[in-house]
């Protein structure tokens, strides 16, 4: 069997704590994009509703049986616990030919950030207005030149998806920002 590595190039996901900030690398979530095929919007909605998959509005993340966040018009990213395995096959079974489904698990590195107050960290990284954003906001944002997805679960709890090949750069940027707030 071939052995998989995490985006940071190790065998296990890393958790780093810097001052009051914790950066948790997550390796237990599988991802796939789901895009509605033209004229199949109603079918996709029906299939999603039946399977308990939320299809949130623009700029939003939602959790049902599975979780999902909005990527683009008529396109979402579906989050599935990795242990449940073949995400594309599973979603194809649900949506059939009503949607285009592409596995995205290995395209991203996921970091969950937590701290009593994440605004000082985020304001050094991204133009995202964390203070004003409501819980469940999901947006693309640029961090250190890298296009990332940023999901606000709560005032102390954020998920970041960044391009996998730049996982080390992104982790470094997060660490530097946290260090400048010690």
């Amino acid at each position: 069997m071939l052995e998989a590595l995490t985006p940071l190039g190790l065998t296990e996901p890393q958790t780093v704590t810097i001052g009051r900030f914790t950066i948790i690398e997550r390796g237990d979530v599988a991802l796939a994009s789901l895009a509605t095929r033209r004229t199949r919007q109603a079918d996709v909605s029906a299939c999603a509703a039946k399977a308990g998959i939320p299809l949130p509005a623009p700029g939003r993340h939602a959790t049902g049986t599975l979780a999902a966040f909005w990527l683009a018009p008529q396109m979402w990213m579906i989050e599935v616990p990795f242990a449940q395995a073949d995400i594309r096959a599973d979603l194809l079974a649900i949506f059939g030919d009503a949607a285009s489904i592409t596995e995205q698990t290995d395209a991203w590195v996921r970091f969950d950030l937590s701290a009593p107050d994440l605004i000082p960290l985020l304001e050094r990284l991204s133009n995202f207005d964390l203070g004003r954003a409501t819980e469940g906001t999901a947006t693309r944002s640029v961090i250190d030149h890298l296009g990332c997805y940023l999901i606000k679960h709560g005032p102390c709890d954020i998920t970041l998806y960044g391009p996998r090949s730049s996982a080390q750069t992104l982790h470094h940027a997060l660490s530097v920002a946290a260090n400048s707030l010690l």
Partner: protein
Amino acid sequence: MTQTNRIQGGQIDRSQSLRFHFDGQPYLGHPGDTLASALLANGVRLMGRSFKYHRPRGVISAGSEEPNALVELRSGARQEPNTRATVAELFDGLSARSQNRWPSLRFDAMAINDRFSNFLTAGFYYKTFMWPAAFWEKLYEPIIRRAAGLGSLSRLEDPDTYDKGFLHCDLLIIGAGPAGLQAALTAGRSGARVILADEDFRMGGRLNAETLALGDQSGADWAAGAVAELASLANVRLLARTTILGAFDHGIYSAVERVSDHLAQPLPGRPRQTLWRIYSQRALLTAGATERPIPFENNDRPGVMLAGALRAYANRWGVAVGQRVAVFTNNDDGLRTARDLAAKGVDVVAVIDPREGGDLLPGIRHLRGAEVVDCAGRLGLTSITIRDAKGRLETLACDALGTSGGWNPNLNIASHHRSQPAWSEALAAFIPGQGGPLGLTSAGAAAGLFSTHACLVSGDASARAALESLGFTATAQALPQAEDAPVAIKPHWYVHSGKGRAWVDPQNDVTIKDIKLAHQENFAGIEHLKRYTTLGMGTDQGKTGNVIGLAVMAELTGQSIPQTGTTTYRPPYTPVALGALAGRGRGQDFKPKRLTPSHKWATEQGAVFVEVGYWLRSQWLPRAGETTWRQSVDREVLQTRKSVGICDVTTLGKIDIQGTDAGAFLDRVYANTFSTLAIGKCRYGLMLREDGMVFDDGTTARMGEHEYIMTTTTANAVNVFRHLEFCRQCLWPDLDVQLISTTEAWAQYSVAGPNARKLLQKLVDQDISNVAFPFMAAGEITVQGTRARLFRISFSGELAFEIAMPTSYGDALIRALVAAGQEFDVVVYGTETLGVLRIEKGHVAGNELNGQSTALNMGLGKMVSTKKDAIGTALSRRVGLTRDTGLRLVGVKPVDPDNSMQAGSHFLKTGAAATALNDDGWLTSTVYSPHLGHYIALGYLKNGTARIGERMRVVNLLNQTEVAVEIVSPHFIDPTGERLRA
């Protein structure tokens, strides 16, 4: 040394002493001091030398407008030139040096320039160094460069770091004087998100420098109370030591926060400064006003200062700049200086007031209708000469003179969108005009409202107006009682007497005479005046001098001041360190890194990496004993062609294209046809721009009825995706096609060479024989049970496959491939070998895909289908692009196999002179072919296809090389493609 000039009072902490050095001399100051206030407290008036004449100079202001007191702060790698002593916050151990002098501040050899001032007038450089032209580069420029400049750089790398960040607010308030503080209180109490920024380390603005009361408190105490309340509000962000640098579109402002400048060095991890990008819904400019002097002969001597600064040093810092002080003012505000200093027991020898009539100051010698016409004291003021209302001259001994010609509202930020300031006759000053940055209003002194009462009222009202326009409910606040004196001023732009020089811009040594000369030589337009004389072009950007300069020009031209106009206000408001603009983006952190899936393994092998965009790719992988890159590359090439080689090709862009119209979509974005491609097959595709030039190429595989995987070149991955989205959304919005990038999701390796199949078959669970998996096949496979993809495509010309696995298995896959290849003596090769292999095969790449080449140029003309409309096909058929005489891709080899060739060399017929007229094309790619044992090249040659076999020259005029060559087919290896299909 003792603080001889320190007097009672002020907002300094006398319980602590801070040691500091200036030009090597030790001094003491207190927390709350600036370097300027501490030097003045110690009796140091001489702080620098001027730019051109090297005249002795002292501080003239108490703020960021300071033109004179520029010092080199700190030492070693932290040395910072041109730091204004007036804003440098004192810390224990601070060291500073004066600059622009040699060998010492008191004796400066370059002061000889002052004796030649008749020659060094405006336009001197333009007139003197014009000819002979040849002298400029070798003679004039080096001399000027040596003499020019103010401070010096350490030339050491800055050891500190700088952060960048983003802030959001409903209301940004720029300046924390009475208007700004009141606006922040009003807005903060309403619940709006407020940012209050002030360049000073102590908020309060002029309230800290005046003795005026607010209600039953001193101004400084009221300010401190306001700051304390604001600090307690969660919705208010106080940014002290923060300068708003400029206004940008739609409520965006930039600011630099000096996080650690007041410390000897930053705390661990902390930045020196932070550059903020502030997104505001509304902004309020409450930046106060800057006083201007009244130029008179020799007015640049140390000890001649702005009247408001003299008062600020006394009131805020407890410093009497002189023992005997005079005041020269044309307005009532200047009289406050005399009153405050006298109240503090300083000897005020006279107030010289050019205005006729009016009340006299009680208990002070107040000369109405008088002027200061000259002064004396080489290294510091010793006396002034005054002319009274009757024309009598009198010399008065004094060691400090405060001058006030009125106050200019700090309207820079309001004018950053080229809004023209408006002229106020009542204030004799410009005030913010119409049409400034959208969402920005001005209040307080910045709006020309100079009384404390007016500042509070306008701050409160402006904040409410801004918030109400955003839907907040803001209530009018009870305001403390404050002075409401009217502005009483009579313009007195300069003293019209004497033959000597009167300085308008002391930093750049621009005098009234220079302005007159500029006018005389017809550089009368205000922007011309600026460039010709350098008025306002120093580090202070003319904050004290510009309005005087244009008033003088107005007088000379007979135009009004508003007709004369101002120069353009541009960011930044005050100088910014380049480090702050760079932020963390320097050295290794200049840009992000993208690591390929084989990066960890390649690092272990000692691979040499090359930057390709953000990617780091293996360039070659040296083995023990190899000392040059060519040895490694030759080995990699030969072994690949002989047995098998592996290359990480993950960096190629991958785009997942699905939908019932995916095939039709591809037919429109590729010049050739894809809708007919069989499932489980891939095809080389050529993508054109609309103008008919080749945009990109790559292979696209059909994985299902409505599923394709497109590959792009590494360089164009982002551009192609953007283009496809444009086509999908803007051109054919109803095609059923969905796109997503999968570049990052898959690790992909090329396995090429005669033993490629044997190697792969050891790992792949399915049959990949030539029958089961023929040339150009594509399919889903498994590798030891884990899902993967296989494509039988070749860039090298060999039997080759590209195998892809989810990126997390990329490291395991390279290790498995190398292990499985042991028996074949497999090599892993980098981008250099990739280049050699493709040039040997005659495949085009970036050098040929240069944005000005068509498919026809590349020998791929037949790929452009005439049966369908695809992007670029129509214009690719233009007559000018399809002539037989046009450029065609050819192969090139040297006649003498020992000769090398250089890319960029041009084709010339044998015997033709090396002129543009005879140019027949150029070499695009050259490389040493270890397989052939000599250099080979690809090139674009006019009518090239018909010239195979012709002997020519390739000439490189830059490197002075010329090589005799023979034109050959671009396919040096296996022209019939037998190896690919083996």
